[in-house]
């Protein structure tokens, strides 16, 4: 059985790939959003730090 044969879902292609595809998309996007949010929180504190040191 070749690689492509194993991935041929026949008449179920839409349903199988529709399920795995959306799941994969969700589980790739969420970590990227999480990284973005953490970076933003860190940048905000760095900015507060800079503002404070400028005041002094």
């Amino acid at each position, binding site marked *: 059985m070749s690689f492509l044969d194993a991935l041929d879902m026949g008449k179920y292609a839409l349903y199988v790939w529709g399920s795995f595809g959306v799941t994969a998309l969700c589980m790739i996007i969420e*970590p990227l959003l999480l990284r973005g949010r953490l970076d933003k*929180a860190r940048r*905000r504190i760095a900015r507060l730090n800079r503002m404070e040191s400028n005041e002094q």
Partner: protein
Amino acid sequence: MQNRLINWFKFSSPATFYPLAGRLAPIFWVVAVTLIAIGLYMSFFVAPVDYKQGDGYRIIFVHVPASWMSMFIYLIMAGWSAIGLTFNTRLSFMMAQALAPTGALFAFISLWTGSFWGKPMWGTWWVWDARITSELILLFLYLGYMALVAAIDDRRRADRAGAILLLVGVVNIPIIYFSVKWWNTLHQGATIRMNGQTSMDETMLLTMLIMALGFWAYSIAAAMVRVQSIILEREAGSTWAQDLIGERA
């Protein structure tokens, strides 16, 4: 014993938990990616074709683990809320909030993949069956919780209101789990039973368990990164947070 008790309380402070979460997250990402990669390989190349459902049954390899996680994460969130309300620990509420979007995501995946399985197998995308309706209610509980916490400006009040909502909503979890027993549902009964009489091929079962463990590691990793963001957002004015970021910059 005394030492252990002190250690646990030490990590209940956001300032000490933040670096721990930072160390745990990469470990769980690696575990998650490895297990899911093995699980996906087994889903398509190792698990045999089902004699009745053909290749269409492979949807269960994401559907079942996602459904389990959607219920499990909710229970963990309710547990954190109970601890938070009892001991008044801020971190407990933060943990519950860190898990919510991931739980909602899995509830959505559960409904989506269930629908994509239902269409070819039952001939319909959706039915108002007890199992499916109670899972939809679970998704709404997650969304309602997130909206409630976001809507209240006073952090302490938001924490408490959210925790109470979570604890009240816990009643939905046994309803989802036992719905296929209590009512005559279109959704099939449990394939994997607590008493060990599992009616499933071993390779299929193993694939499903590996995917479930992968999703479990993914949830922990996601929660660890999100709780770090929540801690920094809420403690932005504190000296420890400013010192920590100052050291890195």
